[in-house]
């Protein structure tokens, strides 16, 4: 089943997680992840698996774009984890964007390139490497 979700992140502080994706109830595979600046702040950030197993928080579940039924799918967590994600030991991708609203980037992967186990380990995250803009973001995934 395909899912998508768009968010406006809340945390812009340096050395903190901007957005976490967590699988819920079943494994997920991420297909696309995109962000765009919502403030005119030059931003440097990285994408990778958290160094720990995050827990708690409020998971904003994605919309099932095929309009199928079923249990809640995976979703995003912007802040408020009881165990927040820590910095990835290795970033998959890093990026810097000049400070103008709307500057953005998106990443795409093939099906099953990235499999997120059902909340049993690290989560893919966007990590603020400096004081950044907040981001308009979207994620597309399959479960």
């Amino acid at each position, binding site marked *: 089943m395909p899912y998508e979700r768009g*968010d*406006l992140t*809340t945390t812009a502080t340096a050395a903190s997680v901007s957005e976490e994706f967590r699988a*819920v*109830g079943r494994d997920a595979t991420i297909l696309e992840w995109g962000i765009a600046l919502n403030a005119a702040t030059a931003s440097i950030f990285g994408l990778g698996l958290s160094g720990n*197993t995050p*827990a*708690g*928080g*409020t*998971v*904003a*579940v*994605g*919309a*099932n774009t*095929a*309009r*199928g*039924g*079923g*249990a*809640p799918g995976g*979703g995003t967590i*912007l*802040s*408020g984890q*009881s165990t927040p994600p820590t910095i990835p030991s290795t970033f998959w991708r890093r990026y810097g964007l000049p400070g103008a609203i709307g500057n953005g980037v998106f990443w795409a992967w093939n099906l099953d390139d990235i499999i997120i186990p*059902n*909340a*049993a380990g690290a989560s893919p995250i966007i990590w603020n490497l400096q004081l950044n803009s907040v981001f308009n973001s979207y994620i597309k995934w399959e479960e």
Partner: protein
Amino acid sequence: MSVVELTFRCERLTSHRDGQSREWTAFGQERVMDPLSQEFSPVVVATDAMCPECSNTGVADYQAATVYVIPADESNRESISQIREAIEGAEA
């Protein structure tokens, strides 16, 4: 599957007229097993978890388990109906 009262908070200060955070309460039904803690986690309908001023999904002040906010759309119709019934039953 009991009903729990949750306090949500929105910290998107720049989106609020007075620059202050917002708090509101909403009910969730414990209906999803958290794979890590093995505790039942509350599920809340998105419209209940939405900040009344900026429409941001708030953060629940709930440490016992993860809170899940499901979209209020057709694909979740059955779940939403059951959650609403449980809340009405708990309030009665």
